[in-house]
């Protein structure tokens, strides 16, 4: 990370002091801000989600992914521990692993065949001692100093995180006890089973997607499917909880078990005449004792989804200021019975690029990016639910977004 003080051009000053209720649109389009995010956030003292341990079950299994704009390999070592190394040959910079997944006993660069162990140690290279007494590497070439960059790794109940920083705090402190308890609720150590992937490119800045999952206000308005088929009621018991520093957010709701007219029926998004033929698509089986629906945004790049019986991680990989890759990894628990798996697959229709409650998100984020890019010096207004970033016990609030930007500004020096 740069030791230079952060230089912020005059035109890039945050439009207010104190707690955030205004967000300038240039944060969604300025390439210098984007570069600074890659350096200070994604390569900084954070834990970045890289996958599920269930994706790489056997020694030698690996998957490739990205942390910010850096390609990495996530691999299970021979002793079953997990390593995360940069996917870039120490020699001339070529990407080492070209396949999205596989199994291997080593990493060998296709270009000059430099060979690395699964820990990223450089084992050797062809003709190190030359051929016929000619050529070769200098005698003082240090293999140990030329391995793959290794990241720190943490496994939380099957969720894999990695960090470029040696100074990142332990994961439990990184989350804070309250947020951690919600993470552990879904990822308790119960073995997971991967059900498949959905991958999208969304033409919006990565932060807009993150905000979207900190925005319970839009859920019953944009996603008519939620209220129409009873998956989300406006009068549900709910809460918005953020970590003390605001970087993580949790939205919690629990439908009250009562019939009768409620706020839902006054919404224009509520279509009382609609009925589904397949009731199972909107009828979850209770699997968490508390009966809650919980959505967690873990800074900087993952959303942990639990909605009806569809469970997934949503991994954000920024591509540019105006594009983000979103990878959904759907999973169940290894001990799910067939009936539960059947429900999980039905409820997956709610999610992904064609999701009943998510296809609209991609549309709306694209539109927000268009509007925000056109007017970088204008700003968003975030006062729903008040002006502070305190936790609250309802969903009619943008407090989680305010909390996030309070934190963002300190990390970015804005």
């Amino acid at each position, binding site marked *: 990370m740069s030791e230079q003080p952060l230089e912020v051009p005059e035109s890039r000053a945050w439009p207010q002091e104190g707690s955030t209720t205004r967000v300038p649109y240039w944060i969604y389009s300025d390439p210098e801000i984007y570069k600074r995010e890659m350096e200070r956030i994604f390569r900084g003292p954070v834990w970045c989600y890289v996958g599920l341990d269930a994706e790489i079950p056997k020694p030698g299994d690996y998957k490739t992914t990205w942390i910010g704009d850096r390609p990495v390999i996530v691999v299970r070592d021979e002793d079953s521990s997990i390593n995360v190394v940069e996917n870039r040959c120490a020699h001339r910079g070529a990407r080492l692993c070209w396949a999205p997944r596989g199994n291997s*006993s*080593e990493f*060998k660069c296709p270009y000059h*065949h430099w*060979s690395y*162990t699964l820990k990223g140690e450089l*084992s*050797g*290279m*062809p*003709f*190190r*001692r030359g*051929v016929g007494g000619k050529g070769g590497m200098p005698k003082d070439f240090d293999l140990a100093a030329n391995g793959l960059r290794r990241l720190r790794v943490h496994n939380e109940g099957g969720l894999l995180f990695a960090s470029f920083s040696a100074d990142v705090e332990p994961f439990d402190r990184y989350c804070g006890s309250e947020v951690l308890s919600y993470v552990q609720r879904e990822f308790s150590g119960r073995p997971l089973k991967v059900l498949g992937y959905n991958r999208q490119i969304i033409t919006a800045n990565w932060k807009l997607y993150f905000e979207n999952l900190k925005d319970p206000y839009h859920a019953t308005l944009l996603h008519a499917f939620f209220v129409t088929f009873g998956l989300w009621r406006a009068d549900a018991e709910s809460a918005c909880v953020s970590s003390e520093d605001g970087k993580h957010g949790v939205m919690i709701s629990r439908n009250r078990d009562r019939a009768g007219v409620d706020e839902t029926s006054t919404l224009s998004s509520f279509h009382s005449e609609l009925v589904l033929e397949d009731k199972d698509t909107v009828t979850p089986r209770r699997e968490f004792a508390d009966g809650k629906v919980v959505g967690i945004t873990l800074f900087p790049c993952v959303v942990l989804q639990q909605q009806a019986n569809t469970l997934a991680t949503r991994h954000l990989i920024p591509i540019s200021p105006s594009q983000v890759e979103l990878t959904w990894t759907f999973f169940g628990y290894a001990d799910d019975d067939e009936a539960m798996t059947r429900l999980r697959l039905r409820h997956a229709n709610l999610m992904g690029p064609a999701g009943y409650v998510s296809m609209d998100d991609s549309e709306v984020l694209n539109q927000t990016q268009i509007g925000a890019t056109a007017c970088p010096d204008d700003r968003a207004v975030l006062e729903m639910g008040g002006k502070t970033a305190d936790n609250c016990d309802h969903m009619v609030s943008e407090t989680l977004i305010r909390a996030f930007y309070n934190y963002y500004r300190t990390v970015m020096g804005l």
Partner: protein
Amino acid sequence: MRVASVTDLPTGEVRQVALGDIPVAIYNIGGKIFATEDRCPHDRAFMSEGYLEDDHIECPMHQALFHVPTGKVMRGPAKVDLRTFEATVRGDDILLKPR
């Protein structure tokens, strides 16, 4: 089976010979003759193009190291020992016993 003559294999050197269609490396270590398969178990490079130091042979490709008399792997990235062959000398002839 006769594969080479001792005079063609000075002390401290390694050569490739053929045992049928199997490439074999023969070594002269301090006057004694040894033989191993001539394919590194890691990436199939010819050990006979590698570096013989004392009684160890280093693969030229990724520097895996083996103890010649036993074939035992001493350093990765190879994980498996080299196959050895029984070599005897009769006069000037080096003989290998096929497996």
